[in-house]
């Protein structure tokens, strides 16, 4: 399988803080790559660095073999990367419809089909189509954020902790959507919910203290009690 995204020893500062001190990982086309690690490890910052929101100072970020780390955020997005941020990034005063419309780069049939698919998967979005995003529940916001990122023909989706704060039944729903999207795009998923990570992930990377420390096949991690205890705090 070919490598779609290669993150190569990146260093990121936020203000004077040296947050990422050497994160590297490779994302194979068609896979779900899961970033794991305890709170404050640097998972969110890794995704934001890929998007150019917290630009890196060293290292490279290669998409399909071209270095995208010097580009602006909007250019990176236009290379075909969709982003579901940790806080979901919903525009609260815009309706669900408007939140979708602002993301829509084309109005072609493929885009409308993807929209249809998302509305079937998340009927709530259809129900609240004209409701302001700020009034949606946490789960609905998450659905909207995922649907919005999926709307354009993206090669890669970066999804930051979609299960955070959601009821188990909604987590199921979100998992289902990731399985659906997986057929068409490659996904990098930050996830603390181990069940969800196991359910959808192919390859894992553990990030600890701003560094990538372990990697392997998701199935193997399930049996590796020592790793889980050391880095993830689960027995």
């Amino acid at each position: 399988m070919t490598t779609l995204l290669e993150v190569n020893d990146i260093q990121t500062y936020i203000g004077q803080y040296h947050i990422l001190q050497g994160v590297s990982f490779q994302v194979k086309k068609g896979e779900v790559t899961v970033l794991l690690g305890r709170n404050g490890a640097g998972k969110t910052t890794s995704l934001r660095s890929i998007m150019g929101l917290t630009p890196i100072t060293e290292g490279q970020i290669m998409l399909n073999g071209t270095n995208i780390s010097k580009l602006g955020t909007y250019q990176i997005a236009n290379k075909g990367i969709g982003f579901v941020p940790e806080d979901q990034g919903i525009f609260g005063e815009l309706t669900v419809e408007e939140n979708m419309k602002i993301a829509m780069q084309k109005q072609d049939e493929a885009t409308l089909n993807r929209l249809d698919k998302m509305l079937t998967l998340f009927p709530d979005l259809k129900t609240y189509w004209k409701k302001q995003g700020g009034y949606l529940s946490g789960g609905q916001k998450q659905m909207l954020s995922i649907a919005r990122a999926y709307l354009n023909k993206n090669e890669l989706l970066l999804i930051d902790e979609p299960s955070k704060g959601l009821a188990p039944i909604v987590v199921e729903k979100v998992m289902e959507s990731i399985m659906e999207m997986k057929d068409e795009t490659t996904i990098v998923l930050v996830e603390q919910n181990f069940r969800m990570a196991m359910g959808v992930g192919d390859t894992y990377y553990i990030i600890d203290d701003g560094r990538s420390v372990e990697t392997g096949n998701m199935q193997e991690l399930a049996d590796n009690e020592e790793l889980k205890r050391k880095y993830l705090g689960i027995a």
Partner: protein
Amino acid sequence: MLNLMINGLATGMLIFLLAAGLTLIFGLMDVLNFAHGGLFAWGAYSGVWVYGMTGSFVMAIVGALLTGIILGYVTERFIIQPVYGNHVQQILITLGLMLVLSEMLKVVFGPNQIVASPPDYLSGSWQLGDVVIIKYRAFIILIGVLVFALVHYVLKNTKIGLTVRAGVMNKEMVQALGINIKKVFMLVFMIGSAMAALGGVLLAPYSGVIYAEMGMDFAILAFIVVVIGGMGNFVGSLFAAMLIGLSGAFMTYYVPDLSLAVNMLLMAVVLVVKPQGLFGAKG
């Protein structure tokens, strides 16, 4: 009574034209633009000049709009862009620009006040029973309403409008959706400047004279409006401008000494009761 009201509404509209650009520029770009009043004055001078050259008030308005757009472009590109994200630098450099803009007016158009009057078809007044409506004031209100409706429509119904509103809420996410927010900034700045210049040229025949520092007086009112209406809130700026315009008209009539103080007081009360402004939704 009614006359005072029309007076107040007309003044309110002029303040609105200035404040609307200011509030969008602040809300979207987080930029404090103290030079905005300078564009107002430049709109007045260039409009009056074009009026003198062509004899056409329509051309005067077009001239003022063009002046606003060009000055807005130059200001954004060369003055504002280098100081994004730094409020102190923004205040210093735009205050400096404000001074340069008004000095330039004196250099180009001379240091004295210039007299301006409305075209014949907008002079005089209508008599409706006991009520006298001055045509030019009605005209200002009409233009203000049209501009408000147009900008409001664009903000509500077009993709660029959505982008501006979204940008006020979350700039990062707008960019993460593949939109070049710098271009949007530039556009908003140019439109805001054009509105300020329009306000200036409309003010000229209303007040009868224009002078280089005219922008300052109105800019203060516009800043009060931005605060009362909620920073970044376009609809709020209309209502707040009307409030300031009306209270100004009534106060000048009844207790002239207190009119600016009342505006300050209004702002203080709003800041205490609802710090995000009367219409401010975001926290």
